């Protein structure tokens, strides 16, 4: 007896070539159209002194959207890490706020992103900073990121990276960044495809910063599709860390080894960020620091001065307007790089004075 003929398919999901072409068109439309369509659905209120919600520091799609809005409403955009964002300050105690006070109008927007070291910052500007075009930009150079081979990502950092999805995935090679090739490729795609950024945005805002399947494990009986009706959270109003001076915290002086700018990945990334911003027709003003030099041991301070000098030399050679202010009074720092509210106030006066485009 002959064996019964084995079926070739165990389901009816078979499309013809033309049907596949139709599905392909739908998929492309979905990938290109979903994110812009979502922008029309999801309200984004740009309040005065807006800054990215702390919890959404990994939501680069939202950052991109915010940077576009900010570019429309403000003359000058402040780009940098948590020093610009205001780690130990409320949104009304930040550098951008005091700059607005100096200007007596809303001219300055806070585009700071927590944990955005220069490698991440360059990636942020390259892939999510398209809105920052033809504007005045104050770009903060936080020298802290060059204070050790670990912070410079020449060695793998003990606590991982703040923004692995922003750093270059293949070139230049970053010794301190360890990741498999496939996830790197996924990140490289995400950096270039707003759709992937949008799906991450949904996860960050509505699904407790995780993917929807994982979210359902914690909310087993909730309708996952209902979660997206909540709307965006408002701007970050909270004081995230207690604003206590480093001297009162009992923090000791540190012997930071510092990395020579010649070999520093972070410094080269910062230079790249400047190139990107200038390439988009922005007028760039660089703010070096304000680093808490009081916190360094004598030897470390000497090494730091050399680093700072090298940075200033490069900025002068590039004819870039910049300010490398003297350190703030010691008690106005919360740690190695973050000023307290009063420190921001002083810094804002110095920056405003130095700005070549101030009205």
């Amino acid at each position, binding site marked *: 007896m002959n064996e019964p003929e*084995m*079926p*070739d*398919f*165990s*389901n*009816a*999901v*078979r*499309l*013809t*070539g033309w*049907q*596949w072409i*139709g*599905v392909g068109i*739908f*998929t492309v439309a*979905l*990938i290109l159209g*979903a994110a812009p369509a979502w922008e029309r659905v999801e309200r984004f209120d740009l309040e005065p002194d807006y800054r990215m919600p702390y919890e959404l520091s990994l939501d680069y799609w939202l950052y991109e959207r915010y940077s576009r809005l900010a570019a429309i409403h403000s003359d000058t955009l402040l780009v940098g890490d948590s020093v610009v964002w205001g780690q130990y300050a409320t949104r009304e105690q930040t550098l951008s706020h005091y700059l607005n006070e100096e200007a007596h109008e809303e001219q300055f927007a806070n585009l700071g992103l927590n944990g955005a070291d220069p490698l991440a910052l360059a990636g942020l500007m390259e892939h999510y900073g398209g809105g920052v075009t033809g504007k005045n930009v104050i770009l903060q150079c936080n020298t802290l990121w060059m204070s050790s081979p670990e912070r410079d990502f020449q060695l793998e950092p003990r606590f991982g990276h703040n923004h692995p999805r922003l750093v270059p995935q293949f070139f230049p090679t970053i010794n301190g960044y360890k990741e*498999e*090739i*496939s*996830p790197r*490729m*996924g990140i490289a*795609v995400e950096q270039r495809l707003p*759709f992937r950024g949008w*799906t991450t945005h*949904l996860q960050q805002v509505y699904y407790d910063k995780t*993917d*929807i*399947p*994982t979210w*359902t*494990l914690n*909310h*087993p*009986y*909730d*309708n*996952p599709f209902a979660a997206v009706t909540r709307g965006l959270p408002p701007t970050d109003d909270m004081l995230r860390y207690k604003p206590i001076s480093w001297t009162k915290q009992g923090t000791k002086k540190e012997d930071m080894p510092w990395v020579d700018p010649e070999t520093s990945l972070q410094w080269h990334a910062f230079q790249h960020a400047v190139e990107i911003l200038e390439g988009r027709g922005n007028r760039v003003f660089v703010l070096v620091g304000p680093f808490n030099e009081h916190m360094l041991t004598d030897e470390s301070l000497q090494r730091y001065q050399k680093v700072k000098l090298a940075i200033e030399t490069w900025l002068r050679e590039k004819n870039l307007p910049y300010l490398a202010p003297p350190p703030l009074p010691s008690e106005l720092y919360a740690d190695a790089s973050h000023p307290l509210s009063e420190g921001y106030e002083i810094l804002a006066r110095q920056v405003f004075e130095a700005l070549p485009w101030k009205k």
Partner: protein
Amino acid sequence: MLFHTWVFFVFFAIVYPVYLVSRKNNLLMNLWLMLASYTFYAWWNPSYILLLFGTSAIDYVMVLFMDRSQRWKKFWLIVSLVSNFGFLGYFKYSTFITTNLNLLFAQMHLSFALPDPASYANVFIPMINEVRLLVGQPPRGFFTEVILPIGISFHTFQSMSYTIDAYRGKIKTEYNFIRFLTFVSFFPQLVAGPIERASNLLPQLQSAPRITREDLSDGLSLFLVGFFKKVALADYLAKYVDQVYETPGQFQAPALVLATVAFAWQIYFDFSGYTDMARGIARVMGFRMMLNFNNPYVATGLGDFWSRWHISLSTWFKDYLYFPLGGNRGGTLLTYRNMFITMVISGIWHGAAWTFVIWGVLHAVGRILTRELERSQFYREQVPAFVKQVLVFAFVCFTWIFFRAQSLNDAWLVTSRIFSTGWVDPQFPLLMAILVLAVCAYQYLFTQSSLTRKLLEPALVRVGLVIAMITYLVIVAQPSTKAFIYFQF
């Protein structure tokens, strides 16, 4: 390299166009496919391509010897089988056997203990280090564990089927070494099957397979369904299953039952998803590979289940073990004995652990106990199909406990807690339940009758399903780098 990762997409984007060009020359085509397949395999552990090459080369040479001398045919077959089972035994079972024998010796108060199998490989260390020094690598230390080469059971069985079929005179000798290497290592099915027979795949490698438009669209359809099964379903179910089976003692009956049912679907989606993707990739290249899963959870008997689950392995065991043992030709008792041996060995094939042995034994006992029942007129005609399907599914789920549990103790813990603990909210995600039920409903409609199947055939339904799957994949599901369950076998 996993099919559902970016690396594979890049790999295939390079391999496919070159393959299309190289098809004009058969030797070039096979050479390219072989190189691609060895690269694919080397992605996990480059040194194991030596093993893949070695086992293939031995089988190739043995069949050449068989071809030359009919008198020594059996001898060459034995050499081939011994080498294949030798490699498989060392890499897959030696640690398990040694551990259990040493335990037995200890129980018997014998001072003798077998050495760690990893230490056997240390005799090669001086040679390995000389090679490493030649290529500028630092010398390596002693081996401390036997690392299981991925998919070893699959490619070994595929290669063995060739020598056995050649011995039986069922297939012609393959003289082209490159083509034979390609047959054993063909990357779509290298690490998790389907275990293709030489009689099916080798002829397809002898000339450039025709690629029709239907092949392209069917290949895409197969790949998408497999991708969805793996990324959207299997990996999602794994999240619930893993947390329960990691610490079964912390969960009550409802969660344990649901995790077991979820695992039944997880392993099905995982494995059949791999097969679908493998078949899809092969199909767009013009190759046809066998169906490996045919809706196994609609089976109405255990025999039916095994004709639908991992078909390439079931038929392999049937052809190369069950029938040679005598099959069902020697009376009832001998038939049961043959069934028992086949099922237990099938269990052991999956892994070197007592849990897999018990899993095989349970299926063997189940199959023996229900064989007569399944053949009875009462069962065939009086018992509603749905009841039979539920009973078979329940039994298969029960056996999956042993397959999934990390140890026999855990399996016993899960089983006992299912029957002894009370009701506690299992916190089983609603979305997960809806997805599984949707698949159940689909399979029911597809297999119930030709009338219900027709409901699934209109273009609107098929295109709608594909669009739903793609939308779910790109928005809801997460990019996954989770390996397939069956890779470990």
